């Protein structure tokens, strides 16, 4: 699908996105499938306060479309369900709505701290925006009112969240883990003891064969992912696996954070990306690794699949895992696109 590429930092010979942000990518989302035309748009939020939009063409070419800036580093972005608008959450404690067609931006949500996550909730009887913040609250907004429809206190700062109606999960500092049911209105469904021993970093909901959300994958800073079912049929359905670690050949092993997890929309397999600069494809049902990449020269900070699962996008940049003194402004962030449909096919027995 994509042609070969050129730069030396392109370790997997993938297609490089034109005009990437100037600082690390903190959010990366493809447009949903509901767009009238078969077009793929990619949105990236970054530490340079920018949110950029590209059109990704079938041949892998990217066309920069537009850019907006927030008052602080962008921490999350999400698409409206119809693919016409983008929500942008920032360290400036705000969430703004970017109407792509009208090219207008308006504020739709506010917190008392930087907003770490934003997700669109699309149910049959209501639609809203869920935002999670370091101010230890989770808020739901109908985007027309300056006041939230609902605010839920979290035990700790919100670190990661995912929404797939009727389910929402939030991972917090202090290894908090809360599942919400969004049916009728958001309610706490279950507080779960964390399956992991270290700080939660990323969470992603997965679906069962009938395409209903049934569990989630939780990644921690200690190179480990937990696959958890909300209601496991068998307690052995839940398991954890290690990833993003050095081989430990010389008696020392470096363990890296799992920066992002995404499930393939068609196959249900998943990808993890890590501070070690690699991405790995996994089949959680066969419990096998399908592929792992070469290590990039920087961490992979975020990743995502396009709506039909043909394209895998990943952002390479510094993730601060070694502190500020390892931040090299000369190394520019990059976003790569990979044709991935076949590589993520589940293992057949």
């Amino acid at each position, binding site marked *: 699908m994509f042609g070969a590429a050129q730069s030396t930092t392109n370790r997997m010979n993938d297609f490089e996105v034109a005009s990437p942000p100037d600082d690390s990518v903190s959010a990366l989302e493809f447009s949903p499938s509901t767009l009238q035309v078969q077009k793929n748009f990619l949105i990236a939020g970054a530490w340079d306060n920018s949110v950029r939009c590209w059109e990704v063409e079938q041949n892998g070419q990217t066309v920069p479309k537009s850019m907006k800036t927030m008052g602080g580093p962008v921490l999350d972005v999400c698409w409206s369900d119809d693919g016409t608008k983008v929500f942008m959450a920032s*360290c400036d404690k705000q969430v703004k709505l970017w109407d792509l067609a009208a090219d207008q931006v308006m504020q739709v949500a506010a917190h008392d701290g930087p907003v770490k996550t934003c997700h669109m909730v699309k149910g049959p009887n209501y639609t809203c925006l869920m935002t999670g913040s370091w101010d230890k609250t989770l808020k739901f907004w109908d985007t027309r009112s300056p006041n939230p429809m609902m605010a839920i206190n979290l035990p700790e700062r919100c*670190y990661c969240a995912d929404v797939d109606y009727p389910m929402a999960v939030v991972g917090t500092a202090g290894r908090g883990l809360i599942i919400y049911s969004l049916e009728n209105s958001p309610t706490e469904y279950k507080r779960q003891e964390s399956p992991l021993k270290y700080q939660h970093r990323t969470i992603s909901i997965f679906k069962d064969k009938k395409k209903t959300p049934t569990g989630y994958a939780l990644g921690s800073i200690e190179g480990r992912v937990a696959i958890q079912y909300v209601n496991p049929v068998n307690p052995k359905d839940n398991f954890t696996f290690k990833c993003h670690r050095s081989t430990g050949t010389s008696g020392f092993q470096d*363990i890296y954070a799992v920066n992002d997890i995404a499930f393939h929309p068609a196959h249900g397999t998943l990808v993890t990306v890590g501070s070690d600069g690699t991405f790995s494809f996994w089949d959680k049902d066969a419990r096998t690794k399908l592929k792992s990449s070469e290590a990039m020269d920087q961490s992979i900070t975020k990743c995502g699949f396009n709506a039909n699962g043909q394209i895998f996008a990943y952002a390479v940049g510094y993730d601060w895992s070694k502190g500020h003194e390892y931040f090299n402004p000369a190394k520019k962030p990059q976003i790569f696109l990979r044709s991935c449909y076949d590589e993520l096919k589940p293992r057949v027995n």
Partner: protein
Amino acid sequence: MGRKKKKASKPWCWYCNREFDDEKILVQHQKAKHFKCHICHKKLYTGPGLSIHCMQVHKETVDKVPNSLPNRSNIEIEIFGMDGIPAEDLRDHERQKNGGKSDSEDDEPAAKKKVEYPMSVPPPMMMPPNMMPPHMLGQYGMGMMQHMPPLPPYPMPMMPHMMPPRPIFPAMATTSAAAAAAAVHQHQQHAAAMAHQKPTFPAYSNATISAPPTTNNAGVGGSGAASNAAPLAAPDPHQQGRLPNAANASGNAAGGGGVVAAVSTKIMHPAEDASLEELRARQPKYQARLAIALATIAAGPKTNSPSNNGGGNSGGGGGGGSAASSMPSTPPPPSLSGISPTGSAAAAANAIAVSTAISKAQEVSSYHSYRNHSQYK
């Protein structure tokens, strides 16, 4: 009489007699050299695996393991790393290593030797294998265990990443010498069982979540293992980071000079109980920009935002953003504004003005500090 310690030998590849420092590398070597499908280059795990793959996927028969010695090309034997190597070949290799000298001890059943341990003065399991300088232990620790059945039964995983959360066989964790003999048998059976298991997730650990976070530091002897697990069982979230190393050390200390852990691990993440994003957001670089923005917002919302959302912004705005009249932005790349159909030319113009504002602001010595946190170093 002091029993002679057996010299630890390196893991080696049955197919080509090559030696490796680490069994993991050996496994990688085997996958790449001997178990790789010549048609699709898929790496399989065992010889039979390769043959089945070629049969089922490509309808081709593979009768010899690629790149193997003539007498070691049997594709039927299931060998994974050091597991599954025929006992006689193991012994032969051992003998060759020892300079052709036939070691009578090798022919002695392992169990028989074990029962002698209680009589020998210090239980050898508590002794470091003093034939190796201590700094080598970490390096050879793993490989050593794999194929030296006469060694005391360490709670040692067959592969570092397959270390079970708890010792699979309780007997293996006991220090009692009496249990050792039985454990050796189990150890070997275990090894055999593992060899026939299909490798799943390389790091797959089952639902049991009581796993110590870093299971690679396998302590020696029951006490070592126990003390290893103890500090990790309830990790203090405020002490994340280098914890495994600390635990490692304590495990060794408590083990009474026990053999060093196989692999010491380091988590490449700051030890502080804050996310990378929080640490990063505290940086002056980002705070300065943010301060400008918050000051601007406080002065009057620029966007057509809903009217009274000021509450969320009240905390901001103390910074040195005097010169800023619009939101900070980095200049968009030329192509971006150039191609953009939705036109951000105005924004670009703004951005230039603002970037000067930012650089001014960055000279202001007192940055607005987010949450009074000290800067992460």
